[in-house]
């Protein structure tokens, strides 16, 4: 998938979000929608200009600036006034499997938290991550994970008196 197709896909998705949002405001009273409606309309407008501009220009020119478009490219300086992150255009074909893995890890972690509660999940996830990446020898990995879990437990459950979520499976283990 080319970068431009991906960009268009994301932009298309956002158009759908904005449209759905606008639809939802129809049920609201005049005060409740006073701010949301213009904001969503503005966003939609910006997005449409963005879509047009990213498809009109060729190659990697879709980082078009509003100001640049207004002043017909007079301010070429703005284009490289990159923000907090230097954009690193890389071949997405290579990173896609890693991205899926990353999302998978995250989903697994969340799943564990929901099933077993945060503390048990932290221990399992951390151990598993150490084992899978092979960063530590297995025994050391489990030990480090255990220590970290203990530290977090002491910090959040004991120190902050946070009532931990027990996880969906907890009742199965509870003595009755």
């Amino acid at each position, binding site marked *: 998938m080319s970068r431009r197709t991906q960009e268009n896909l994301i932009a298309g998705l956002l158009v759908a979000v904005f449209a759905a949002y606008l639809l939802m405001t129809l049920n*609201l*009273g*005049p*005060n*409740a929608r006073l701010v949301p409606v213009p904001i969503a309309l503005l966003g939609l407008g910006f997005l449409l200009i963005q879509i047009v501009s990213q498809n009109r220009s060729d190659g990697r020119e879709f980082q078009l600036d509003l100001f640049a478009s207004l002043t017909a490219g007079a301010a070429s300086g703005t284009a490289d006034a990159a923000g907090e992150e230097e954009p690193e255009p890389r071949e997405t074909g290579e990173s896609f499997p890693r991205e899926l893995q990353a999302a998978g890890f995250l*989903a697994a972690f*969340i799943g564990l938290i*929901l099933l077993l509660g945060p503390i048990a999940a932290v221990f399992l996830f951390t151990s598993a991550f150490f084992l899978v990446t092979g960063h530590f020898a297995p025994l050391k990995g489990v030990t480090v994970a255990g220590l970290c879990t203990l530290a977090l437990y002491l910090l959040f459950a004991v120190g902050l008196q946070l*009532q931990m979520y027990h996880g*969906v499976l907890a*009742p*199965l283990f509870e003595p*009755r």
Partner: protein
Amino acid sequence: MRARLPCLLLIFLAIAASGATAHAASVRGEIVTLLSPNSAGGMMTRYARMIAPYIARHAGARDVRVRIMTGGGGIRGANALWFAEPDGRTIAFTSVTTLILSQLAGSEAVRFDATRFVYLGRAATEPRVLTVGAGSGITSVHDARTLGRPFVFPSQGTDEDFYSMAVLADVMGIPLKVISGYDGNADTALAVIKGDGDGHITGWSASQAVIEAGDEVPVLTLGPERYPDYPDVPTALELVDGASLEAVQAIVNMLDMRRGFFGPPDLDPEATAELRTAISAALDDPQLVADSVAQGLPLLPSPGEAEQIKITQITEASQHLVPMLRAALEAIR
């Protein structure tokens, strides 16, 4: 993932419930969960944490565990209590005022009928007060009525003070203009002091400092009787009669039920009796009384039976209130 969560919760509840029904409905030796639908650092939760161990002691329960369930201005926790097993092992502590009002006003999130909760006892209450800005020229309710323009009421969204004011204005014939969107009591107080607003409703202790400083003037107490420190400030009940009195009485009853314990509807009679006794005893425990003084959380207990009667009164009067509350809500939407 998010859609699955309610299902998982349901399964959890189902498992919990299936285990629960096997027990006799006594809390003796059991773990009681005390839901606190308010924020973790708030007054309500501090009260709940302070009182919980004493209830456990007097009820002979293994433990009374405070469970914070913040959300939707108390609605989330109240919804949870509504669906809880009526075996006495899940009770809640919050301001029932907000719950009744949001229900009467037709809030879409409400799944419960607040008047059907079983009342177990009140821990504390404090009358609320309508104060006006010192520079507003208003010194009494009569002045507010004859301003020749609407009385400007800065409000923080749709809280109990908003609804109380709507009802007061309606029955007392005060033309009202609500300016909603303020961020908390400090913000409305400042608006009143500045003269952006004419007056607002707060708790007596919260307004102490500004009244003493001469920035605000109390004109009306929303409580069963006059506030001892300000004997010249009339109560709302003194100023109305007939059907209006009924409406104001309902509001006063509601406000008087803040900081109370209650259980799910159709709570088992044995558990109800047990918990009411235990809560009364806990609130009379000299050690708790000492604690409450030390922590600056004053107690003003009232037995569950008495509070239950107020609930009934509120239910009867609420039909009067509904159109007023709905109209007030409609006006700011």
